């Protein structure tokens, strides 16, 4: 006797972009899992060809409305790498402050509006707000504080206008930063409570033996950096990324899957950054993690919600530290001469490492472009978590299992709109 059960979640909700999950259980065993991306491809790598190097930050920002700063920062750094320019000092400091703003708004959106309702059994944050008005109101205030950084430095929250290859169009004075600094100090203190709050959520007992991959910097918790490391001995220059990672199209999936050549799937994002760089978090963030019950090593993806809260706290703390030592740079951007060259860069988007590579002609126009977003890199790991989650939950009532599967996907904060590497795939089912 054969009993087949199929679970279908269509569409997946509270994720950025559109996806579908399909699970097939045959005679009490998981026989198939498909995490389908139904996002139409937009062909950024094709349409970037022929454009000037300095247009890349504005065009690539449009890949994702939730993490445009990540796309812009990887783009400008890849161009600077190609053109042999190093942006350092106060200009690099401003980039880091701007990036902190994006971590804050993106993480808080996910923690309180997309992820927390899962743990407490609400369909969304608006319903959660009816029972927990103070929690949701405070979260929105904190999210706004993160967006204030982006609006101040970038001009607007979504698709900032002030980022350019070499630096910025306009840089603020110290005095202009003063009101923002007050807001950020308040927000930093208020986030301590948020970290505590995430620590007391009910977490499923789930552990995965991940290979964590993140950027590495000798002194900073990584946002920008030149080296890529893992907990299994990977330690390479970011420019060697393509020699160690491969994207492949697999028949059972709807997205290109990234693998570490010879090793398989890996995890990038908050959990990876935290596990590999705990020592570089500020003392305040380390203490808050400890107080929330988080060990320096954490392999439970459901607890990524605490890690995100710790990173929000760190980002506020770091933004305050950086702004306090800020001196207005002059000029606001380094100038550079176009040349035929190839450059690449990785930065830590809220969801994980974001790789870009450009080949330029002697006028500085793009000949080829390659963009590997974090969600594409995590695809394989999401599916591996899902296999384990369903195998563990076969005895659960169907609704509960369904919910657990959705939660497993949301652990990754998947940003499906980063559509550069997603595709639509039709599968024949017998």
């Amino acid at each position, binding site marked *: 006797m054969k009993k087949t059960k199929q679970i279908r979640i269509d*569409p997946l*909700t*509270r*994720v*950025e*972009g*559109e996806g579908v999950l399909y699970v097939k259980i045959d005679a009490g065993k998981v026989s198939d899992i498909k995490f389908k991306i139904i*996002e*139409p*491809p*937009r*062909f950024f*790598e*094709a*349409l970037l*060809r022929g454009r*000037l190097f300095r*247009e890349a930050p504005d*065009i690539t920002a*449009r*890949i*994702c*409305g*939730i993490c*445009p700063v990540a796309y812009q920062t990887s783009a400008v750094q890849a161009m600077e790498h190609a053109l042999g320019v190093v942006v350092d000092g106060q200009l690099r400091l401003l980039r880091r402050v701007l990036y902190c703003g994006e971590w804050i708004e993106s993480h808080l959106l996910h923690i309180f*509006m*997309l992820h927390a*309702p899962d743990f407490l059994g609400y*369909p*969304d*944050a*608006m*319903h959660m*707000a009816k029972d927990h*008005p103070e929690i*949701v109101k405070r979260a*929105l205030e904190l*999210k*706004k504080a993160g*967006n204030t950084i982006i609006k101040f430095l970038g*001009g*607007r*929250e*979504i*698709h900032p*206008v*002030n980022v350019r290859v070499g630096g*910025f*169009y*306009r840089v603020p004075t110290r005095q202009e930063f003063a009101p923002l600094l007050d807001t950020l100090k308040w927000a930093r203190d208020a986030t301590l409570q948020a970290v505590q709050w995430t620590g007391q959520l009910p977490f499923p007992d789930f552990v995965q033996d991940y290979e964590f991959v993140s950027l590495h910097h000798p002194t900073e918790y990584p946002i920008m950096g030149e080296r890529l490391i893992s907990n299994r001995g990977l330690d390479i220059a970011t420019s060697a990324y393509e020699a160690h990672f491969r994207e*492949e*199209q697999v028949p059972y999936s709807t997205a*290109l899957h990234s693998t570490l050549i010879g090793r398989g799937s890996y995890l990038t994002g908050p959990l990876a950054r935290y596990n590999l760089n705990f020592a570089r978090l500020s003392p305040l963030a380390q203490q808050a993690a400890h107080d929330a019950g988080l060990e320096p090593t954490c392999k439970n993806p459901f607890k990524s919600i605490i890690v995100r809260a710790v990173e929000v706290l760190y980002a506020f703390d770091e933004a305050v530290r950086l702004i306090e030592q800020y001196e207005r740079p002059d000029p*606001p951007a380094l100038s550079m001469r176009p040349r035929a060259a190839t450059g690449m860069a990785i930065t830590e988007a809220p969801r994980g490492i974001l790789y870009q590579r450009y080949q330029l002609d002697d006028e500085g126009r793009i000949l080829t472009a390659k963009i590997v977003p974090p969600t594409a890199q995590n695809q394989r790991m999401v599916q591996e978590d899902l296999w384990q989650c369903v195998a563990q939950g076969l005895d659960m009532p169907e609704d509960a299992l369904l919910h657990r599967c*959705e939660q497993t996907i949301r652990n990754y904060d998947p940003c499906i*709109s980063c559509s550069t590497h997603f*595709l*639509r*795939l*039709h599968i024949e089912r017998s």
Partner: protein
Amino acid sequence: MVTRHIPKLAVWKFASCDGCQLSLLDCEDELLALASALDIAYFPEASQMLVKGPYDLSLVEGSISTPHDAERIKQVRKASRFLVTIGACATAGGIQALRNGKDIQEFISVVYASPQYIEVLGTSTPIANHVPVDFELRGCPINKEQLLEVIAAFLHGRRPTTPAHSVCVECKLRGTVCVMVAHGTPCLGPVTHSGCGAICPSYSRGCYGCYGPMETPNTLSLGRRWIQLGATRHEVADVFRNFNADAEPFRKEGERYEENKANTH
């Protein structure tokens, strides 16, 4: 006893970056009030609760770029009393409309190893090319204050107020010195629809056209002025070929400079 009708809101996504619907969640100060004035009935990015139509107001983000989406938008129209498009993708085809007029198979092969799995249209087109649209809100991304104005207007049965004049008017209103006149910085402001609040010039940068063409734009004259200021023909073609590349005045001007773009004048 008469019970008050709570309007049902739906938010739909087509080919896009998510930024315009994110603007709704970025209304940090107004979101909870909005959720109590409206029944947020279908908003998969924000809620697991998906209530069936019909809907009083549908906000549509993104462009039509696949055969599936060309059908889906018809269902959305049927289920919606008012349909409002939000953002440059939904009103002009978006940056992905740069594929229009190009060899789509070649585009696919640049990105994907197995092109046979990809099912897309050769064009990315605005929603209004497929179904009747009640109102189009411009911008890449949209301005969240304008979004609130649109929602409020439809709830009260009036037309939204979103001026169709140029970005220049917004610069004058906020007292920004003209970057083109004072510094010789090429700026698309004179032909670009208002709505962003003239952000770029206040950051010492020329406008790059996120909100698409204003009413009656004199793109011909502005293109000539850019050349006088030292821009190459290729650069003029590029600036018209961005997020609103397929909006007609920008498309025409882009094409004019695309031809013979190697010439300096």
